[in-house]
């Protein structure tokens, strides 16, 4: 069979064009075995004035098979005057390309909170490869201690810090998850303040505990929230559905386990009246633990006790926040969102907030006493 050369020209051209596409992919792409993945980044403050930042990178060491591998991580640390220069220098400490595509947790050392955080987050936002859905947290005593902790339950390819914040593994009303973009918008927006979870590592570096938080009000010193307050913040911010309420009434002590919770708030300003912030919380749950026999006929009374207890706690927290001028729930944004911007509504709100009174209504409905009465 003889094919005229003329007819071969088109297929030849097509093949040549297709093959030429191999060339460009060769110089822009690095294979996965030439990359090393950064899982989390930590930033600490040093006392050295010339090199104020200490950058810690936690890297996942690739292993050949899942079976034989232990959890293997390696760490890089560098002190420098800026992150970019630290990371450029850290690149020379490994033989592979540092890949930030899987960086999901950024930990700030406690010390760094007294400096400008907007400066620090700038780097992470400006870089394209760091996800804006990375979680931010505060490490105590230092970010380094938290990153270097390797909890006993941690498995290969499942970083403990990821599981803590991703509410698919552990689910807890004490854990606050703050994304990078969420932090950024709350830093820039007036009338709402960001809250970051606090990670605490144990001394032997075998445990990481996260159950408290720090509120970073603008232009104010950071405010620490206790675990109980963290839980209430999560409740009020509709972050959590499941939580527990401990009620103590005379000799009776019982715990209610809540499985649905919803919070709404409203700012009521009437001329010639004191401004009121009305906060309604509705919760439903069952009794989980009690030191006495629980009479199912008295469920309503138990609900009332629980409601009062939570009301008291929430009012105390709100008053504390008001005294410090902090606004983690975005009351200010709500005020700005409901008043036409014909004047500086935020300025107006700042004045209002200092004299506003809280009207907290909690409605707990206990549906059952559990398996036993």
């Amino acid at each position, binding site marked *: 069979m003889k094919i005229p050369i003329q007819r071969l020209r088109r297929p030849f051209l097509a093949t040549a*064009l297709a093959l030429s*596409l191999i060339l*460009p992919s060769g*110089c*822009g*792409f*690095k294979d996965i075995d030439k990359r090393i993945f950064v899982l989390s980044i930590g930033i600490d403050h040093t006392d050295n004035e010339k090199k104020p930042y200490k950058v810690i990178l936690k890297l996942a060491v690739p292993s050949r098979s899942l079976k034989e591998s232990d959890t293997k991580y390696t760490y890089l640390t560098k002190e420098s005057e800026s992150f970019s220069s630290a990371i450029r220098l850290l690149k020379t400490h490994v033989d592979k390309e540092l890949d930030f595509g899987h960086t999901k947790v950024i930990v700030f050392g406690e010390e760094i909170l007294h400096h400008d955080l907007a400066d620090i987050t700038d780097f992470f936002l400006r870089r*394209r*490869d760091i*996800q*804006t*859905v990375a979680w931010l947290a505060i490490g105590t005593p230092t970010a380094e201690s938290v990153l270097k902790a390797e909890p006993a339950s941690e498995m290969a390819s499942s970083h403990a810090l990821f599981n803590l914040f*991703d509410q*698919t593994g552990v689910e807890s009303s004490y854990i606050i998850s703050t*994304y990078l*973009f*969420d932090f*950024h*918008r*709350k*830093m*820039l*927006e*007036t009338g709402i303040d960001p809250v970051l979870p606090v990670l605490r590592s144990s001394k032997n570096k075998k445990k990481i505990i996260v159950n408290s938080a720090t509120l970073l009000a603008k232009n104010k010193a950071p405010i620490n929230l206790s675990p109980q307050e963290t839980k209430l913040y999560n409740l009020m911010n*509709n972050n959590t559905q499941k939580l527990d309420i401990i009620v103590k009434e005379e000799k009776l002590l019982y715990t209610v386990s809540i499985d649905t919770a919803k919070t709404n708030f409203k700012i009521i300003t009437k001329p010639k009246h004191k401004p009121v912030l009305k906060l309604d919380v509705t919760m439903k749950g069952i009794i989980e633990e009690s030191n006495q026999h629980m009479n199912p006929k008295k469920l309503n009374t138990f609900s009332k006790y629980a409601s009062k207890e939570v009301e008291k706690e929430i009012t105390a927290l709100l008053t504390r926040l008001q005294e410090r001028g902090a606004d983690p729930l*975005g009351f200010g*944004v*709500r005020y*700005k*969102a*409901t*008043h*036409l*911007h*014909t004047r500086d*509504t935020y300025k107006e709100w700042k004045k209002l907030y200092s004299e506003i009174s809280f009207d907290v209504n909690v409605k707990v409905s206990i549906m059952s006493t559990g398996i036993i009465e």
Partner: protein
Amino acid sequence: MSRYFFYLVFVNMVANVVASVPRILMGYRKEGAIISIIVSFCSGLIFCYIVTRFFNSFPGKGLPELTKKYLPRWISFIILFTFAFTWYIAGLITLITFSFLLKRFLTPDMPLLLITSIFLLFLSYGILMNSKSVLYTIEFVLLCCLPVIFIITLKAYTTSALKWDFIRESFMYIHHPPSFTAIAASTYLLLGGFNLIIFNRLFKEKQQINWKNMIFIGFTGGSILATTYFIPIGVLGFDAVGDIVYPWIITSDALRLEFFIIDRVLYIFLLLYLAISFVSVLIHWHVALELLKSIMWFKHIKWKKQNLTPYLFTGLFCLGSLKAVTYLTEYQLLEYTGYFLNYLFCSFAVMFGLFLFIKRRAKA
């Protein structure tokens, strides 16, 4: 109306993200963006209706055939050349913006020129196809992409990251007078119907746009306009969104599909928009090429019995974009896009004069 007409309209609606429309609107969020959007929604629908009605009365004829028949030659030449240039720039803006996006997010290690060249390689082949094949390509790509875009939009509306207070805050600036730039930018979404100036050649059967079609276009256009403007504000924050160069790209990064194969929506979003912006440039440049072909046809440039005029124009298109992509900075691109959209709005208003004139001549 033929379904292909709706595809032409939809491509512009969806592709607005890569034409810097969200960024321009965000810049005016404290200076009357919402009123501008409402105004542009009305004006865009009117534009769309007029242009479709006009071409409905000349089935199977594109603008070049009409101007040649009813206008003096030199006026026809000027008009068609201006339009060809306008359509070329419209495609160019999408192409350059998307090349920048690819360079920034998907292939940062690849030289910009190479990214653009690969894009151009496929585009050149695409715009040289006949108009019918172009329409089939659009249909195929849109049918593949629209469901996914719909899901991402749904996700954006239902995510807990969307804070409605920010959106409500944006409404508190509603009393500001509208701005021309914002009106022009958001009208871009509804200008897809103008591609009929060439594609009407294929709609040979007599058809009439009716109120049902207009309600359909109005409904989708309105919801896409609202989504384009409000979702980035709700996700990124009313104050913070002003600093962000590509509001929609970062918004898609802020969404997270926990249980999907890739949990970063950004990459799915970029791949989708790779297809959408390709189709968008394809339409615009195909129209530009056909317009040029109708006014300039060099009989003597021949190679093996094939006239090389279209190849010549395609080559010029590619050279122009390679030059522009290296010359422009991101900020300049945004600035010029703003100017271009302003110009587009005005030129389309002038176009109606032309339509009226042709219609009168045709009746006489």
